[in-house]
């Protein structure tokens, strides 16, 4: 706990809660407005009485004035499963701090918020495939499980978002909020997995965690570059021209990536590991409408 995140930080997050863009219907009472009328104290609407309705919800005052049997409906607040799809491929091991650490801290903070919001929180680490997951559950006991699972993450393997999403969809039947945390630095095609996630109706939030060296490397000289996931290597003498070309090419990649996510109405947040996590949560995610 102390290694991954400190309690003061979590306390400062206490007044935040997840915002679901779609009305997700959960199984338990929670903090999210359900598309179904429910039993909360917040009035929603009237409807005509149909046999079988609970007579306790008939508005007798209206019947006295209009002689119509109208049933009062209330907003149903249900919980929403919040799925954290966390990239644990080898590329997440890089960075200062490592992207995996930053991503874990982020997932832990957001999970904490969700649990406080009476949501169920599940953790689905993935690399080439979906790894051992923490099924979504309520309560702070789940936070402990969540924390243990995050603490035990050892980033390795290649990223295969397609197969991982396939595994995820097969393991979870209930739609919810999918927080997809990854560096999204892969040559794989992201369109299909995104399409499948979107097709199910999940509320998807994508957070790209990058190292500053991913964005704008400053290394110069002859460097043997090794892909941490595929172990491919190439020798390149890096000079100012090469760095400039890299930055341009990386910016193009980011633009393409953002276009992909926007195409599926998935908000994409990009954060560098040297960016303060609290600031990212309080400012960027709130400004992006993910938290309030």
């Amino acid at each position, binding site marked *: 706990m102390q290694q991954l995140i400190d309690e003061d930080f979590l306390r400062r997050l206490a007044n935040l809660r997840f915002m679901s863009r779609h009305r997700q219907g959960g199984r338990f009472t929670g903090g999210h407005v359900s598309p179904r009328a429910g039993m909360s104290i917040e009035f929603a609407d009237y409807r005509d009485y149909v046999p079988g309705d609970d007579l306790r919800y008939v508005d007798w005052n209206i019947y006295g004035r209009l002689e119509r049997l109208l049933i009062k409906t209330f907003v149903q607040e249900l919980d929403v499963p919040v799925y954290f799809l966390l990239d644990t491929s080898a*590329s997440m091991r890089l960075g200062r701090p490592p992207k995996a650490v930053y991503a874990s801290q982020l997932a832990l903070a957001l999970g904490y918020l969700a649990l406080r919001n009476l949501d169920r929180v599940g953790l689905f680490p993935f690399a080439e495939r979906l790894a051992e997951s923490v099924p979504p559950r309520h309560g702070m006991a789940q936070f402990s499980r969540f924390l243990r699972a995050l603490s035990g993450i050892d980033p390795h393997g290649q990223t295969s978002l397609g197969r991982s999403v396939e595994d995820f969809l097969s393991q979870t039947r209930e739609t919810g909020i999918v927080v997809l945390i990854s560096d999204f630095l892969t040559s794989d095609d992201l369109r299909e997995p995104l399409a499948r996630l979107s097709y199910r109706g999940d509320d998807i939030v994508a957070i790209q965690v990058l190292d500053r060296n*991913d964005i704008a490397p400053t*290394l*110069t000289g*002859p460097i*043997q570059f090794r892909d941490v996931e595929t172990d491919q290597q190439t*020798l390149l003498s890096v000079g100012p021209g*090469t760095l400039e*070309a890299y930055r341009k090419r990386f910016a193009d990649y980011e633009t393409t990536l953002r276009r992909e996510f926007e195409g599926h109405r998935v908000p994409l947040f990009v954060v560098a590991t040297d960016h303060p996590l609290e600031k990212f949560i309080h400012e960027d995610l709130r400004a992006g409408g993910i938290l309030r």
Partner: protein
Amino acid sequence: MSFGFPAAFPLLATALIVILFALLRSRQRRRDVATFFVWRELRDSVSARSQRLRSLLDPLVLLQLATLIAAVFAIAQPLWTSKHPGFASLAIVVDASASMSTRTDSGITRYEAAVRRVDEILATCPSSSISVILFSKNPRALVAGEADRSVVSRTLAASAPGWEGDGEPADLVSGLAAVGGASAYEQIIFLTDHAPATVPFPLRVETFFEGRDIGITVFSVRENPDGAGVSAFAVLTNGSDESQSLRLEIADETSRTTIETFLEPGEEAAYVVPFPTSRGSRFVASVNAEDASPYDNVRYASLQRSIGLQVRWIGKNNRYLMAALDAAAPIRLVNALPADLTVVYDADLAALPDGNVLLVHSTVRDVITIGDRTMAGVVAAVADDPLLSGIHPSDIYAERLPLVDVLLPFLSLLSVGENPFALRILDPNRLIMVLPSDLVATNLPITVDFPILVRNLVAHIMPAQPAAASQWTLVGSPVLLASRGHSVEVLGPDGRALALLPEQRAFFPDRPGQYSIRTGGETQVLSVNVDPDETSSFAAAELASTADALLPPLSSQLRGTQSRLWPIVAGAGLVLLLAEFFLHRRTLSERARAR
């Protein structure tokens, strides 16, 4: 290129250590990335190919290897041998003797041709250090170690050959010693018209022998042993390749003799020319040759005449007798003894004088008495005596011959009847000749026998004097003044006094002619000639042209100059090391920024 210490090259093996470290460093420079696909695209892009190529050649490693190689090369002491025409140091010895002023067929002198040749040599030796020596009996350095060819050319063009003869091999050594010695020069070129038979060190001889020479190669004058004038001896040489009709003229101060002659090419002819009446001391021989070398067409000789008579005269003068004495030998009248001869003319003496005596119509108390009675008649020889050599007594007639009494033993030489006309007192230590008659009372002064008689007399009293031979010296040879007594002044051939220092003990005549050396008592004549060896021969010309044909062209020679390169290589290594240092520092700082 060669190396002074090639054993250093195995040190190049240490380059393997540098390469090993480079490989280790290369491993350290491996970088794990998540964006490999981006780097791969960059690698495949055209703009990155050069970067990739450079990555194979790490500048640091290259600089380190270059530094190492430079250090090893510096230790190996590389020597660069550059080959280019010419020589690093060149000494040009130009013959400046009199013969070099011989005019060639092209209108220039041999010396001018040699100067042109020097210009050609200078053009082939652009980077040489040039020294020029003018070589003759007195060699002198004209230019010493000059790198500016224009200076050499200008200085040489302003010079001219002198009248001196060729120097000896030792003079060549001393001439070169003035410019550092022969060993200081990579090549020595000798431009001359006289190929030397031997040389003291290796040198390249080029000859300039155009122009044919006719000249007087020998000229001398000597007194005839009998005192009758002098004889001149001259040798004419036809050094041309054509027959020559020549006229040899020899003159003393009062007369001249001309000889017409004809010489074949290469022929030498000797001539003896008598000057029976010559009493001069200056002689000049000349030939009318119109050749290319006029310096040997005139020769000078001077003769210090040995016949000189100190005469003490007592009594009356008699110009006949004086003239006869003067004709026999240069006489100098003195007033007191010692004298070579005491002439007593028409005088009465108290005693007989010491030394040789000629008594003419004179008496000596108690020894020779002349009576008043006279007689006349033709003279006849009484005795056979050397004093009468060449005399015809019958040509002599005495008009008034006085009778004479002589109290000493005597020998009558000539007489008229029984009365002596000429007698000699018998004294083994001296000559005492008596002529009792007054000369004007005889026909003796007007006969040819009179000067002969007087000459015989003079020859008799100075029999031990050797015949003098002419003397002359060569242009450039030292003439000692100290041995000539107190020197007042020296006059040149033009009659002008030479500038001499008071303590000067010798001088070097610089041109041919006759010099006058005035000492306290007399004037000596010094004849100075151009060295007869300067007269070129036709055979020598052929030999010289053959020798020149065997010489390789100078321009084909390449000179090798070895330069020590290790300071340059070491400097380059230091620069490379500094470059490697600063590049390494920059790389470190960039890496620090990257972290």
